[in-house]
């Protein structure tokens, strides 16, 4: 026998269910993405590692290029540079460059961008690197002094003939910000950790088209349109987003789910196998060329990969012509030398072809004194690396080499790669390092194989091959100096370096990455300029249209 209370409870529950159901129906428009502002939600796969414009050297790039500006920007169409904060960059003589700033640029607090701010930004970046070793301030290495001539003019004096333009347009370490950050933060020491922390809490004073309004690097970053940005009138994009939500979604499957359900508008990392299906379902796909490549490094300090012929045998066993189709599902380019396609110094002549007979001959010639059982470490969650590793394993089996594949989180990959210097026997025989440049100097890629002076404890932590060749280091040093002076004239030297790499084979570039962005075509349009191969992972949202 059921009592009154039971009936009452059932009635309350029924009413609750009806109320919730009605609320869902009635308030659907309220909870949906429709809004008066143009909001775009962009899913990015990695957490943001920092937003100090002088220090950040990793994933913060995608925020920094929206919040701050550089003086010049690389123009992938011409291979030259376009003006951003500078309106002219003139070479006065071999060691002096005069930069005149645009008149209408303002920081987010409304103050004008002046030569004093440029001076402040350059020196903080340079000093933070020189005194703390933080950031990528080495790009200002040739700068000896700076002279502010007036509010809008600054001269950069270099220690030796040095083309400053690649530095002014660098992907990292070239951002200009207001010197008022000292007043705002209440910190007077420009190289202090406190100031770095202040920036990394989401504080900023840049001049870019967007301002940071919410900074939770582990979850999401929200940017808001800076309406006084000088560029709005030039690019004439009334549909540019008012609010950009950069949401950290690590799992590509989750990105796909969110894209389909309307939770995000642009996905930066979708399972490659789903791209065609999404395209057929009406989603847009943009393929952006990048200078981001995947380099296979051989442990040159552990048997058998310490033998050049074994390394070459492995290189010839790689199914080069299948990589793009099978590992990258067509989105990428076959590697040719360490320099990626489109980057100064690239040449297609270094491309390899699979030749299993040659690989067998090389192996037999090598006569390795240890077992042909190799360990390979790849980064967990990188589906293209996983697919490649499986391909390679199958091909190596054909020439009698066993390959054990370990997929590890990135930090552990890095740690194992670096262990080649202290514990080469514990470091894997093969390891994949993905790399993108800081600025338009080929040294950036070859620096991965620079030895430095390990005997004095000066180690190159990115040389996961443990490769040490004094001749290579000498030519690289010459090429680097020459490229600072004249990129064009340095290219023959880089070719010489690539020849050494080809002969010694401590590393091979497997593929040049193309970044794939899948987006909701009903809401988003990309204009020219939204992607730039030098500024990896950055979407220049001022060139994105959000349709209501």
């Amino acid at each position, binding site marked *: 026998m059921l009592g009154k209370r039971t009936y009452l409870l059932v009635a309350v529950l029924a009413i609750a269910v009806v109320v919730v159901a009605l609320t869902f129906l009635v308030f659907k428009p309220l909870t949906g993405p429709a809004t008066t502002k143009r909001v775009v939600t962009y899913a990015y796969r990695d957490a943001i590692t920092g937003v100090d414009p002088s220090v950040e050297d990793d994933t913060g790039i995608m925020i920094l290029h929206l919040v701050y500006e550089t003086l010049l920007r690389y123009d992938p169409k011409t291979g030259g540079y376009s003006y951003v904060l500078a309106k002219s960059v003139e070479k006065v003589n071999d060691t002096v460059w005069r930069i005149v700033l645009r008149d209408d640029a303002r920081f987010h607090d409304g103050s004008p961008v002046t030569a004093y701010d440029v001076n402040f930004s350059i020196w903080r970046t340079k000093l933070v690197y020189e005194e703390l070793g933080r950031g990528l301030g080495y790009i200002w290495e040739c700068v000896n002094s700076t002279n502010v001539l007036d509010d809008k003019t600054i001269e950069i004096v270099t220690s030796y003939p040095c083309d400053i333009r690649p530095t002014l347009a660098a992907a990292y370490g070239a951002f200009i910000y207001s010197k008022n950050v000292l007043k705002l933060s209440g910190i007077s020491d420009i190289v202090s950790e406190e100031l770095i922390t202040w920036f990394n809490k989401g504080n900023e004073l840049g001049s870019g088209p967007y301002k940071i309004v919410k900074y939770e690097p582990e979850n999401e970053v929200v940017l808001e349109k800076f309406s006084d940005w000088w560029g709005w009138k030039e690019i004439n994009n009334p549909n540019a987003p008012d*609010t950009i939500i950069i949401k950290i979604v690590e799992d590509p499957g989750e990105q796909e789910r969110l894209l389909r359900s309307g939770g995000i508008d642009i996905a930066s990392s979708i399972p490659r196998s789903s791209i065609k299906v999404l395209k057929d379902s009406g989603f847009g796909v943009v393929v952006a060329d990048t200078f981001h490549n995947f380099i296979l490094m051989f442990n040159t300090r552990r048997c058998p990969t310490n033998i050049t012929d074994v390394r070459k045998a492995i290189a010839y066993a790689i199914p080069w012509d299948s990589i793009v189709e099978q590992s990258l599902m067509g989105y990428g380019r076959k590697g040719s030398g360490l320099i990626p396609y489109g980057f100064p110094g690239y040449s297609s002549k270094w491309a390899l072809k699979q030749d299993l007979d040659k690989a067998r001959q090389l192996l037999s010639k090598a006569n390795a004194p240890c077992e042909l059982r190799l360990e390979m470490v790849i980064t967990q969650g990188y589906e293209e690396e996983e697919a490649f590793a499986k391909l390679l394993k199958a091909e190596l089996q054909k020439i009698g080499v066993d390959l054990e594949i370990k997929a590890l989180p990135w930090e552990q990959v890095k740690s194992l790669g670096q262990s080649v210097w202290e514990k080469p026997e514990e470091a894997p025989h093969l390891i994949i390092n993905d790399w993108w440049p800081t600025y338009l100097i080929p040294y950036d890629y070859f620096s991965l194989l620079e030895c430095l002076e390990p005997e004095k404890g000066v180690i190159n932590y990115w040389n996961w091959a443990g490769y040490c060749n004094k001749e290579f280091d000498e030519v690289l040093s010459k090429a680097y100096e020459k490229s600072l002076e004249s990129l064009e004239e340095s290219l023959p030297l880089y070719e010489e370096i690539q020849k050494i790499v080809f002969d010694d084979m401590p590393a091979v570039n497997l593929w040049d990455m193309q970044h794939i962005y899948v987006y909701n075509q009903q809401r988003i349009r990309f204009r020219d300029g939204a992607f730039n191969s030098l500024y990896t992972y950055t979407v220049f949202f001022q060139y994105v249209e959000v349709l209501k």
Partner: protein
Amino acid sequence: MLTLNYIAKRIVISTLLIFGIVILTFLMIQLTPGDPAIIWAGKPRGPGATAAIARAREYLGLNLPLYQRLALYMYKFLMGDWGLSVEFKQPVFHLVVRNFMASLEIVVYAFAVAVPLSLWLGTRAALSRGGLGDKTIYFLSVVLAGMPRFLVAVLIFLMLYLFGYGYLGLRVSPKYTTFSGLTGMITVDSLIAGRLDIFLDAFLRLIPASIALATYPMGVITRVVRVSLSETFEEEYVRQAISIGLPRKVIVRRYAYPNIVSVVAQLTGLLFSYMLLETMVVENVFSREGLGTLTSRAIVASDYPVVIGATVFTSIVLIVANTIADIVQAVTNPRVQL
């Protein structure tokens, strides 16, 4: 007096436990691979790299002997300085609390759903012991408690998706994403701010995640209430009450319920810990931020300060929750103090 002594004893034990966990976590983290100095230094390149890493090591205190590092860590921990995250470069305490509040919000709502429903279901089952209602509720509770949370969450999300509510997966609509408040729980902060639109939006998004999370405590508490009440009904004093013709509801409320309060309180304390862990799965499925997501990202990035901070903070919350549950049990059932 005995209760006060018991409470004091429990608090001392809990404090010692917290210290133990801090030390143990700190020591265990030292054994894991990865060098935080290299992560802290970023991507140091060129000849300056070695010096940069050495400076980072010094700044992070990694060059000190283990016991000094531990002492320094304990001192800073007590002073509220839990360090900076090496991956996110933000204060650990701030990161942990922000994400904990997001997780806590789901847990609170899940309990709000689970506790009254399971009490009602458990009571119905106990009252019709052996009957169809009892068997149905028992079966339901087994299914609810036994189903993996990721499966429940995925099924709920799939249903939402099929019915056109897939966008409810986020914590709040993109247009409210900059809203923030004192507690970090959007539903509470929006009410404090008088923003009913935000409350409604956040609340609707909480329902599916909370229901997914509530299934486990519902299943477990229902079964415990069913068994405990059935046993209580066999007690002499309850039989007496029945024999004198008191209404069944009065018997349940006045005589049986007080007898099971301590058991339910204890169980709820334990479940609270478990649910905090389970939120990790639910957060992932519904694309919500929270402590689980933060911790998993920190582990992958060898972000030791965050891993230690999140572990210790969670432990403190769990110990406090269990201590409260113990105290409630001690107050309601003095036998446990003996």
